[in-house]
């Protein structure tokens, strides 16, 4: 059974249909990639899944549950995490604080216990810290732990955002252009991590990506989007040889 389904999903901004009747299924444990020219509606689709935007038609289903009308803050708790195309980190906080915020959906403590910093709060914090340290190990962020985000180079911020998403222990991870702004070496590392995220942690990945090299290396399935509509879905090779995809990229 598909872990995630989109059925005839649409959204309009004024008279522009940014996403228009999009339907697809994602199988658990796979990397599903969306490609498409600038302005195709890829990020908008992510914002619909994160519930930052309301759909004007269609349904979104995660693990058999209709999430089309849930509030945005309940999405993380279900097991969907994301990164942002232009980074949405907490800039004036440390890497550690950012990653601990990744644990927010798993926090249980209440205000009174926190004000008194009871033993239960300390224990919970330590448990979250252990999880965060696992992610720090995985993505090699040790030396940045106590750095403020504003003092970090772009490439590192990109990794911190991935780390923050992983800290929430998602089942479905949305990555919006994970390689943009990275050099070749960093992109190679990213490909390696995406493989590991799928194979070692069994996390399903939904990714938007422009770098075809990366797309070919990691994708199990590719969807091509143009003007908010699905052109085709298939393997990376199939999609790239589709005539409409070629014209879309050549600016037809």
């Amino acid at each position, binding site marked *: 059974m598909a872990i995630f389904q989109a059925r005839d999903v649409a959204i309009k901004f004024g008279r522009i249909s940014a996403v228009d009747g999009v339907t697809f299924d994602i199988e658990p444990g796979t990397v599903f990639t969306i490609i498409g020219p600038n302005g195709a509606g890829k*990020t908008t689709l992510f*914002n619909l899944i*994160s519930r*930052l935007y309301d759909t004007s038609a269609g349904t979104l289903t995660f693990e058999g549950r209709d999430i089309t009308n849930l509030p*945005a*803050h*309940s*999405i*993380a*708790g279900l097991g969907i*995490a*994301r990164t*942002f*195309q*232009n*980074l*949405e*980190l*907490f*800039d*004036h*906080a440390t890497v*550690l*604080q950012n990653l*601990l*915020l*990744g*644990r*927010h*959906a798993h*926090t249980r*403590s209440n*205000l009174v216990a*926190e*004000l*008194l*910093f009871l033993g239960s*709060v*300390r224990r919970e*914090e*330590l448990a979250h*810290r*252990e999880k965060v*340290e696992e992610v720090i190990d995985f993505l090699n962020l040790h030396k940045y732990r106590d750095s403020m985000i*504003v*003092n*970090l*180079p*772009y490439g590192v*911020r990109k990794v911190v955002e991935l780390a*923050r998403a992983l800290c*929430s222990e998602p089942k479905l991870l949305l990555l919006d252009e994970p390689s943009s702004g990275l050099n070749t070496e960093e992109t190679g590392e990213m490909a390696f991590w995406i493989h590991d995220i799928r194979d070692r942690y069994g996390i399903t990945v939904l990714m938007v990506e422009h770098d075809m090299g990366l797309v070919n290396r990691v994708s199990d399935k590719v969807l091509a989007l143009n003007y908010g509509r699905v052109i085709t879905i298939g393997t990376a090779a199939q999609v790239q040889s589709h005539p409409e995809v070629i014209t879309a990229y050549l600016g037809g």
Partner: protein
Amino acid sequence: MRFPYKTDYGQDLDLFKSSSDRFWYGLLALVLLSMPLWVDTFWLGEVSYVFILGIVGIGLMILTGYAGQVSIGHAAFLGIGAYTHAILLSMGTPFVVSLVGATALSTLIGAGVGFPALRVAGIYLAMATFAFNFLVEFVFVRWESMTGGFSGFAVASPEFLGVSFTSGGGFYYICLLSIVLAILLTLNLLRSPTGRALIALRDSETAAQALGVRLARYKTTAFAISAGLTGFAGALFAHRIGYLAPDIFTIMFSIQLLLMVVVGGMGSIHGAIFGAIFVGALPQLIAIMRDYLPDSVARQPGIEPGIFGLLLVLTILFEPRGIYGRWLKIKHYFSVFPMHKKAAFSRQKSYTKSER
């Protein structure tokens, strides 16, 4: 330069990070506890006032410095705390009960004022709190049966075993205990999930939501706690001034309170305290300065707000991290002496955001 050697994650949760911290704060505690023995009543009153301002500063820092919600209506909460406390005392309520009552009412009203913050942000929120301040001033004037209207009323000074504890040394210790408790509770909050959630909504509401932070809940919480602390400080403030009148809790005072946290240093409790010391000491400094200025300047009625405004602008231009930021730099300078690099604190270029 010293690097604390960490052996377990719990150390990052501790309030005192090193033994030198413990030493300096211990010394500070000794100085403050012994102060009534070697300081006269006037200065004891001034220091008590700094403690009261410090509590307000902490409250405002939680809201503005951590949760990123600007308020220019905090004098209203101070007033609500002061009036509630004074009215309860006049009805014969015991001191501690009345203090709790003033704090509770202020907390509730704060949560209510938090509601517009769910819809509006930035300058519009600032304007909403501004309007709130006017509204509260209006109520103080008009609800004469309770507040005594324009002419106001004197605050009762309760006694314990025949000794007044709302002036002199007794009052000093009450204020000291209060600010220590306020600091401890706040530090606990800030090292907990709620404190982090506040920072999250300050820096990116989008990301905060995507991580499961309920914006409405945390904004309301920030307003409630901030107003609660300020109302509590207001109750103490009532004793400090002894006589309540509506023209004390004005927008001008609210702006001065905001200035306190900005000049002190945004986003740190140290900043709130430094700001309180500064604002508490400023009238004295201006009084001293007046003696040296030509009469025509010194007698200008607007000189105090003028100086406040000027300092605010200078801080924003030259030291956005406030007095605390400057203090950190000085500390760093000495800890690495003579290896100081000029560039140690200049930031890497921030990457501009164009869209999400």
